């Protein structure tokens, strides 16, 4: 048996190519785990009655990766049995219905990976420096997550 599969790993990637659910799940699958939980964030085609043509994402890449690493570290503190964590986020143009983010977590039993995935996406939305622009038919809009941790503190 390949013992290196048992060392917990974080797989973090920001990329402009289409994300793959198969690829992300396979990263976290491990012989010691009975559960893999997944979150996929996909792009909706409408916002407040306006038709969304596509989304564009940009990132402060180096800091986004380090903030995601912090999230992984927090996950491992809160749920020590978590094995592998994968966070893939797409940058650039994302067409409607395609995935902008995929998060996968493996653990021996299902409760930890389910909770950890939820924590990852909620915390990502609050603290990772990535920005989304919604492109409509005749205008665009920079979105703001309500989770953004400073959003209300400076008013």
């Amino acid at each position, binding site marked *: 048996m390949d013992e290196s599969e048992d060392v917990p790993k974080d797989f973090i990637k920001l990329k402009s190519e289409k994300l793959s659910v198969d690829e992300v799940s396979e990263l976290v699958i491990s012989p010691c785990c009975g559960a893999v939980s997944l979150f996929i*964030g996909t792009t909706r085609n409408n916002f407040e009655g306006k038709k969304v043509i596509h989304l564009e*994402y*940009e*990132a*402060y890449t*180096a*800091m*986004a990766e*380090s903030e995601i690493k912090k999230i992984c570290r927090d996950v491992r503190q809160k749920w020590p049995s978590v094995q592998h964590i994968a966070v893939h*986020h797409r940058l650039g143009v994302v067409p409607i219905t395609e995935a*902008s*983010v995929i998060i996968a977590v493996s653990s021996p039993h299902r409760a930890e990976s389910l909770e950890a995935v939820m924590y990852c*996406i909620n915390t*990502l*939305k609050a*603290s*990772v*420096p*990535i*920005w*989304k*622009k919604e492109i409509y038919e005749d205008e665009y809009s*920079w*979105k*703001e*997550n309500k989770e*953004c941790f*400073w*959003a209300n*503190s*400076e*008013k």
Partner: protein
Amino acid sequence: QVSVLYFARSAELAGLRCETLWVPRQVTALQLWEEIVKVHPRLAVIRDQVVFAVRQEYVLLGDQLLVLQPGDEVAIIPPISGG
């Protein structure tokens, strides 16, 4: 002398993504903001929405004293929308 990075709406208002600026070595976050707005007055409209990232750590626009080294990276961070 620090590198200032602009993202999202702040890059659109400033008209650029990065530049080098001369700033005092010791400065509060708010003072640093004022220095940047002198160079790019259009940024003033987002003052209540942004934070800084100094050496990739978040800093609110307030009285916190920043000790800057030459070549440090300072980023303007508008409200985020990842995920």
